[in-house]
């Protein structure tokens, strides 16, 4: 069975074969690993990967599972559940600016109908004593502002809709990487 796990903007592919009770064989790229696993408690697993022991703490979150191994924590999501997410730009690219975390809108820097440049500040949100400027991911025109100053916003709530200017997708992506 193949697993596609999303980590940040990246997809990690594992070919997994159950080879016994609590035993599996996992292939990642050129690396093949023999794994023994056992659940110790709700959030704790004991693993043996190619003969080496590890403890893994796992918790279910709304957007995936948080996994901690050897002091390092990763948020992984089943990509089949969430759909592939290209990094930015292109035909499947964003049409909106969303809130990255629960925050309060402290300032709106643009007006409806206004053309904006890529990287131009649109909205200032405040969370945990820190102000953050949310910037336009591409050039375009503000079609709608969905929030008011002082309003609380949730993760991924769409704050501003932007209609993109016609731009070559490949170039847009390149710019994003160099930005």
């Amino acid at each position, binding site marked *: 069975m193949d*697993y596609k*796990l999303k*980590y*940040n903007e990246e997809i*990690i592919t*594992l070919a*997994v074969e*159950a080879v016994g009770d*609590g035993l*599996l064989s*996992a292939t*990642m790229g050129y*690396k093949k*690993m023999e*794994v023994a*696993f*056992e*659940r110790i*408690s*709700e*959030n704790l*697993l004991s*693993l043996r*990967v190619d003969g080496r022991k*590890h403890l*893994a*703490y*796992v*918790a*279910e*979150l709304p957007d995936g*599972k*948080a*996994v*901690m*191994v*050897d*002091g*390092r*924590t*990763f*948020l*992984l999501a089943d990509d089949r559940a969430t759909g592939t997410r290209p990094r930015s730009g292109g035909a499947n690219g964003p049409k909106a600016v969303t809130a*990255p*975390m*629960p*925050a*309060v809108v402290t300032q709106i820097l643009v007006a409806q109908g206004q053309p904006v440049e890529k990287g131009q500040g649109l909205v200032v949100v405040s*969370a*945990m*004593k*820190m102000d*953050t400027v949310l910037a336009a991911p591409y050039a375009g025109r503000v079609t709608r502002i969905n929030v008011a100053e002082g309003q609380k916003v949730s993760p991924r709530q769409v704050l501003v809709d932007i209609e993109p200017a016609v731009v070559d997708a490949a170039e847009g992506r390149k710019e994003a990487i160099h930005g």
Partner: protein
Amino acid sequence: MFKKILIANRGEIAVRIMRTCKEMGIATVAVYSDADKHALHTLEGDEAVPLGPAEPSQSYLAIDRIIAAVQQTGAEAVHPGYGFLAENADFAERCEREGIVFIGPPAQVIRDLGNKITARRIMLQGRVPIIPGMLAAADDPAVWAAHAEQIGFPLLIKASAGGGGKGMRIVHDPAELAEARRGASREATAAFGDGTVYLEKFLPKCRHVEIQILADQKGHAIHLFERECSIQRRHQKIIEETPSPALTPSLRAAMGQAAVTAAQAAGYVNAGTVEFILDPDGNFYFLEVNTRLQVEHPITEMITGLDLVRHQIEIAAGRPLALTQDELSSRGHAIECRIYAEDPEQNFMPSPGRIAFFKEPTGPGVRNDSGVYAGFEVPVAYDPILSKLVVHAETREQAIRRMIRALQSYAVLGVRTPIDFLLDVLASAPFQAGETYTDFIARHFTKWSPDRDTLDLAAIAYVADTMAPKARPAGRAAQPPAHPDPWHTLNHWRL
């Protein structure tokens, strides 16, 4: 001694203060905003008084509401913790006027030391070394130009009311001076309501070393050695340690004495911290006095064996400080890591949310002062500190190893933390060599990203978690029969 203290703060520092109060037999009053109804400090206080909405100005900074809570509960004293009202002279003054003991220095001392220009003048009079620079506010560009020439470039413009890096500009060239001054002043006005700025010499490769002091109401003052706090991100400390790898015994004695002199020059009472800049040649310069308990106070507690909060409360209650400088000694090495809800991959952006799982490190020489628990929703409204992880060991090398072990066994799932980033800092050659300058993170860790090998293991753990049957039933392996014989042999074992 006080019978009841109100803690005008939240989170881990409120919890930490309550613990000492409880051990002293003092009842505690927690205050909380709407966002903190289920916060640990709200749960652990003997009483808890709601203040109002999450916004600090309407809760933890609302002086009238806090004073009302003190009066309503009959608390005799207020501990302000750090942040919020801890260095607010108006609040301290209001407490004095209302007959409430403020656990900190007198309002006038907070006011004097809160103004950096005033503080510099006090230190100069007390012969405490200060950074070359201005000693009075000035409007005239010619006066600025003259000072600039005399001090020499690069220069640093600082806000007199400042803190947290706001209203600060480095100036490398005379041509930039006027514009930089205007920009800094504008920023200071916005941040502090006071646009006063002044000039200091800029010291590029330096360390941030601070001295903990304790002074009682009779004028007896001592220092509790130094803390090295050079590892910072966004002008905020993330790793602190003591002793400083840079101090010799004679430099330690000189800086300690300077801090005591500074305290006495300012008429200081209670616990405070005198911050210094230390240059690579061993010259040190007064930076500012923090007129409160510091986030990093536990490392001083570890090496001295003292409970600083207890001494704060005893001093505030008018007791003389029984400790003398001679009988104090620094034992072993202590390190603190601040564990924030933040994302080290995204420039330490805050990462609020619900803590789904929380397992604290334990063991010899490990202390974790936490303000959260599994199931707690870390609020958006406040500084996202979750806990302060502190270790103590015989030597610096052993303390580093101990901190690495503690970080590796610290599981916080649901919000992002810098635990893996901190692991890499502690394991790095420059940290281990003690090359802890204030530019450390910018110099060595700007392009940090998480370990790839462990990511592979995490992916395997994800799959294993999906495949492994979920928790066994809550009962014991061997269930008793549904209707057991009721007689319990246990009662007859004493026959």
